[in-house]
């Protein structure tokens, strides 16, 4: 019995390196290439769509996208853990010193969202600021048809969407104490969809029928209104990279993203950059 166990162990040891070598030889000979992309959860759905389409044209290229957060994407591009980083906010002061290249692949609106049953359909920027800083606390202050304390829902600190929303509405770091903070656009959407008294904000790419998106300053949150500038809350979706260090395959992919074909995909839910 013991002999058999030892034999199996030794055999496994002997076979392991051979298997590992075989694997690497196979991939070295052919052309496949994997582009690692990580960063903003807001850019992620767009990147997924682009990757899906690109795979049909260039089956040998795999685009491995991860939604980990804007700062993480910038960090990854800086240290080289990912070839491309995704960010949904402009670079911060310290990050500007990294000497990274930025490529805006699309623009995105941020819509305030409420539960579909909420009669409130439009707000002004001043009202939004009062809600998110805690000056307006009850729905009856906004609408005659609805009452109940407002449940304010925010993204986590450092989120690109939160940074852009706070900047445009004008309440940087003054979020009302007691506001719920959720992880990612999906977390906010689930929380708003499940609470009739909630208000939150979502990237336009995430808005669907489970929530009701509000007009801001009289402009509906649509791609057209972001393009003509009447919807006031919008920011660029960036790809962060080092132009002198990326592989030719990655450069080809970026060129394709900025081509009419790639931008057509960006135009489905976002505002094309070109």
């Amino acid at each position, binding site marked *: 019995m013991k002999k058999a166990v030892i034999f199996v162990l030794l055999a496994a040891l002997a076979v392991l390196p051979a298997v590992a070598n075989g694997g690497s030889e196979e991939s070295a000979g052919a052309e496949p290439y994997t582009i690692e992309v990580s960063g903003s959860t807001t850019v992620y759905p767009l990147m997924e769509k682009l990757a899906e389409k690109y795979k049909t044209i260039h089956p040998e290229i795999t685009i491995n996208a991860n939604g980990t957060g804007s700062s993480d994407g910038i960090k990854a591009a800086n240290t080289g853990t990912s070839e491309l980083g995704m960010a949904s906010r402009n670079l911060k002061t310290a*990050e500007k010193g990294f000497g990274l290249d930025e490529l805006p692949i699309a623009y995105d609106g941020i819509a305030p969202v409420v539960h579909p049953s909420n009669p409130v359909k439009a707000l002004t920027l001043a009202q939004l600021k009062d809600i998110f800083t805690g000056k307006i606390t009850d729905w009856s202050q906004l609408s005659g048809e609805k009452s109940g304390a407002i449940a304010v829902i925010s993204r986590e600190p450092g989120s690109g969407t939160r940074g852009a929303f706070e900047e445009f509405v004008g309440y940087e770091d003054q979020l009302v104490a007691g506001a719920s903070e959720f992880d990612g656009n999906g977390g906010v959407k689930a929380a708003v969809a499940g609470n009739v008294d909630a208000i939150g904000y979502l990237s336009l790419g995430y808005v669907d029928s489970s929530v009701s998106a509000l007009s801001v300053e009289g402009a509906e949150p649509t791609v057209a209104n972001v393009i003509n500038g009447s919807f006031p809350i919008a920011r660029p979706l960036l790809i962060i990279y080092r132009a002198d260090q990326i592989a030719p395959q990655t450069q080809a992919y970026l060129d394709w993203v900025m081509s009419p074909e790639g931008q057509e995909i960006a135009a489905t839910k976002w505002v094309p950059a070109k």
Partner: protein
Amino acid sequence: MGRKQVIDKIFKNFFLAVSFASVLALIAIIVFVFAQGAIPFFTWTAKSTHLIPYGIDEFKLNGETVRIADLPSNAKYIELERQCDGCDIEFRNKGEAVTLTFKIDLDEDIVADRVKIIETGGGEVDYPEEFVYEVSYKGAIAGQKSGFFIAIPQGPTKFFKEFLFAKDWHPVYKKQYGILTMVIATLLSTFGAVIIGVPLGLLTAVYLAEFVPKGLGKYVRAGVDLLAGIPSVVYGFFGLMMVVPLVKNMSGAPAGNGLLAAIFILAVMMLPTVISITETSLRAVPRAYREGSLALGATKMQTSWKVVFPAAKSGIMASIILGTSRAVGETMAVIMVAGNSPQIPTKLSDGIRTLTATIALEMGYAQGRQNHILFSVGIVLFIMILILNSVILVLKKHMTEES
């Protein structure tokens, strides 16, 4: 030496190597976390003030020409002296010569006084975030701007005054890293879960070990084991969909995410640990104890309560430690139901943010000092668990000596 001895020796060394490797890995992790987490309390965020130009190709700093293209590709900034009495920048904007003069003194106590901008030459001064000054100039094209960021380093964070006992968590713009709210939230949610979960778990275990009919016991035990195997995100999802709306309806609070929902989910999550370990230790009590007690005329209830339960004390303590540790360390389920607002709760329905939730929520977004502070939060958690375990160990020792 015979063949058997040789094989024995090989195995012995193999086991030694394996255990050495695993202990080494543990030590490496702890050393790494402590090293990272200690950084904010001893060092400045950078050695010097950084001058970061944007939209400018070339300028003169105190008479010396700096070309952006000549700077290293991963460090497009210039380091300034700690004290700079009248730094002088000259460059051309829209064809006009502009002079920008400022003073830096990092030894100044008040942060706002560390940089004084004396002359902007038509630029606009702004403070996009704490410790950062921006001087911007309108470019030739509408909307285009050029200018400089002056980023001064942040001094060491004071451990008690600015971290452990500070209430304000504003990591992005104000750079305040107070975690008192999260320590309190972690303690409250754990304490609440222990108050509910431990008695429920202990009583269930006593029933399962002593009273349950054989047929039923099999199914209950299988159910408890199944409960232990459910991933925490599933508990969290259940909490988000069922418990949170229930709390909202019952309390009338604007949102059901909060302390109560977290306590409920944590109590349920620690049940399987408490039940299965307690039950195992109750079963390990020798049959002779029970038989002796019954033979002396004690009832079945008296036997299990006064004889079996005390005899299994150390196992029961272990189950409580493990259950509590699970509640302290639980992350995913808590993030989903607790609301994550960094505040000191005054009501059961108030949103709370635990220490673990903070690390998980912000690690993807943290940059600079915030990143190290998250490791410091990890150290605080580690120490909390250590204190918890030693308190229970002391209690256990105390109780064994008594009996």
